[in-house]
Structures are given as C-alpha cells and as structure tokens.
C-alpha cells in the first residue's frame, strides 16, 4: 500500500476517498479537509478568535491542534463535570496538551456553580438522565465563556457525530432540529457563534491524525455513555460505510444542500431574570437547577 500523495509506504487507507496515505500526508490531508470546511461553510472569519471546548478526547484536542497549525489564535475551555476520576483524568489530558504547547486553557468546574454538586448528583436531584443535565450545563457554560470573551465557540464534532445526530433527527423528522443542524450557528443576542471545523473528517481519520501527531488523548469514555443511542447509530453507519464507502459524507453533505427546506418558527427568547442569558422561560434551566442545588451539600446557599 503506497501513499497516493508521495508514493511512500502508506499507514492508512481511506476507502471513502479511495486513497492510502503515509503519516505526513495524512496530516496534510486532514489540514486540507479542515481548511475546506472553514472556507466552504464560512466557519471562521478573519479576525475572529476561537475558543475550543476541549474534553481531553481525540477530536477536541486535534481541532485545537489544527487551528493552531492553520494560524488561528485559539484558546481552550475545559469543563470539569464532576464525574469521578474520569473527569480528573480528562482534565489532566487537556492540561498536558495545553502546557506542552504553551496554550491558554480555562477550566470551569460544574461543582463551583452548583453548591459542590457534579453531574451525577445533579441528575439525581433533578430526576433527569445525566446526559440531559450534562448537555444543558455544558452548552450554558461554553456559550457564557465564549460570549463574554468575544470568542467563536469551536467544538470537535466530527462527521460521524453529525451523521448520527442527523440520522436520529431524520428518523423522527424533527424539522426544528434539522433546520438548526449546521456547521456554523450564527451569533445572536446573548449567544456566541458556534462552529464545527471537523464536519468533513471521520472519527477514524481524527483518531489517526491524533496518533500520528503524538497527541496524548484520553481513550476512556464517559461512564454514562454506555448504551447510548448515538453509539448504536454510529455502529449502523459503520456497517453502511463498509458496504458503501463515502456514505456518511454523501448523507451529510446532501443534507446541507437541502437543509433550507426545513423550517421551524424561531423560539421566542427572552433574557433570564437571573443571569440575563437567552431562555424561553422566565428563569433559564441553568439558574433553575442552580437554585435547586443550593444548600444540598451543606454548602452555604
């Protein structure tokens, strides 16, 4: 197996692109894919400063690495979720990455906002699945940090993530969600713009990029992700991809071409009476949960 770009011994074949690549050309290939996504979908404008939400995993650390390679001055944000040792090990991976490259990493702790409680305790308190609480809390804290810092929020969602989400939304024809699934969501009052530069790169390509760049990412998965529907969808799509290489990319890119057909009335947003960030109710979910958590762990209200 020879590298399509330079003729050296290839280390990986990418069937969806009908190519094999050596380590160096794989890195260049991924850089070009990310550059293409940024250009085609206008993910980052000149002068915009990215804030990368990092989890310590392959995708978020790689997108941070790639933005630096492409000349962006990107900072990082790690959110410590309070999920036992898993959160500590993830934070350690994010810190190691930032320190080795002299990058600025901001750390937010969920416990600091919720009277010492982490995601598992908040889920029990609110009688909701941990992933639901986690998503809401992360979205709030990521937006707040990016918005207040005048940054564009960057996440490490890859093609497989987007395809799994899209597939789930198509199964139920959730028109509102379909209309809002985009590589870049624009800024709005109280909302920072959000972008996903890895949407044209598969999960496997990103893992290969991370390994070839020597990025020391955390392989461990969140303990709450076991049995998640999105993992089932990813498994289905990997079966499909094996039979029909390029299926993921075609499904996602063709969706983007018809996305404008899906419309839903914009929710009427108003400033939260407590924090001022946009919400559909008087008090946003974050502030409501924060109030519920007050005094639960013996901490002062």
């Amino acid at each position, binding site marked *: 197996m020879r590298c399509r770009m330079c003729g050296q011994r290839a280390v990986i074949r990418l069937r969806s692109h009908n190519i094999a690549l050596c380590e160096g050309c794989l890195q260049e290939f991924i850089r070009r894919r990310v550059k293409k996504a940024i250009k085609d979908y206008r993910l980052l404008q000149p002068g915009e400063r990215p804030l990368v939400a990092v989890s310590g995993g392959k995708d978020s650390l790689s997108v941070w690495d790639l933005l630096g390679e492409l000349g962006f001055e990107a900072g990082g944000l790690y959110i410590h979720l309070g999920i036992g040792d898993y959160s500590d090990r993830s934070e350690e991976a994010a810190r190691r990455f930032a320190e080795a490259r002299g990058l600025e990493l901001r750390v937010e702790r969920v416990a600091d906002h919720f009277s010492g409680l982490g995601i598992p305790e908040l889920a029990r308190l609110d009688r909701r699945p941990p992933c639901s609480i986690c998503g809401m809390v992360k979205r709030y804290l990521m937006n707040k940090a990016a918005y207040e810092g005048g940054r564009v929020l960057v996440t490490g969602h890859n093609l497989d*993530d987007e395809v799994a989400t899209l597939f789930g939304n198509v199964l139920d024809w959730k028109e509102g969600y379909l209309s809002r699934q985009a590589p870049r969501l624009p800024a709005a009052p109280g909302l920072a713009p959000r972008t996903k530069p890895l949407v044209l790169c598969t999960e496997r390509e*990103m893992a290969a990029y991370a*390994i070839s760049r020597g990025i020391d990412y955390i392989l461990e998965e969140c303990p709450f992700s076991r049995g998640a529907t999105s*993992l089932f969808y990813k498994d289905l799509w990997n079966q499909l991809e094996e039979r029909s290489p390029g299926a993921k990319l075609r499904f996602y890119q063709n969706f983007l071409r018809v996305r404008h057909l899906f419309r839903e009335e914009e929710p009427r947003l108003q400033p939260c009476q407590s924090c001022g960030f946009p919400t559909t109710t008087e008090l946003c979910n974050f502030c409501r949960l924060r109030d519920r958590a007050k005094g639960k762990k013996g901490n002062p209200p």
Partner: protein
Amino acid sequence: MVTVTYQGKRYAFEGKVDGFKILRELGLREEEVLLVKDGKLLPLDQPLQRGEVKVIPVVSGG
C-alpha cells in the same frame, strides 16, 4: 508471536499475521478501529511475525 491488546484483553497470534487477519479474528470492522505498533499507526496489510499491537477503538461519544 504477535500479541494483540484490545479492550484490556490480550490475544496471541502464531505465525504470519497482518492487520486484516487481526480484525477478522476479533470480529472488528476497519472503520471502528486503528492498529498501533510502537506508538505508530500500523498499515493493515503489513505482515507481522512478532511484536505487540494495540487495537485502538475510534468510536466515541454518547
């Protein structure tokens, strides 16, 4: 002998083996994993007779 580590378990392969055979024996799809030897990506078509290979799952999230 080639020793393969996957999800905390070790598997031993005698004789000539390559990445495709390792995937077949473990029931894995090419899209789901990468093989790594000595910290480097291992091409699936490379014949091996000895050494340690790690199978790295690439699917993540929830």
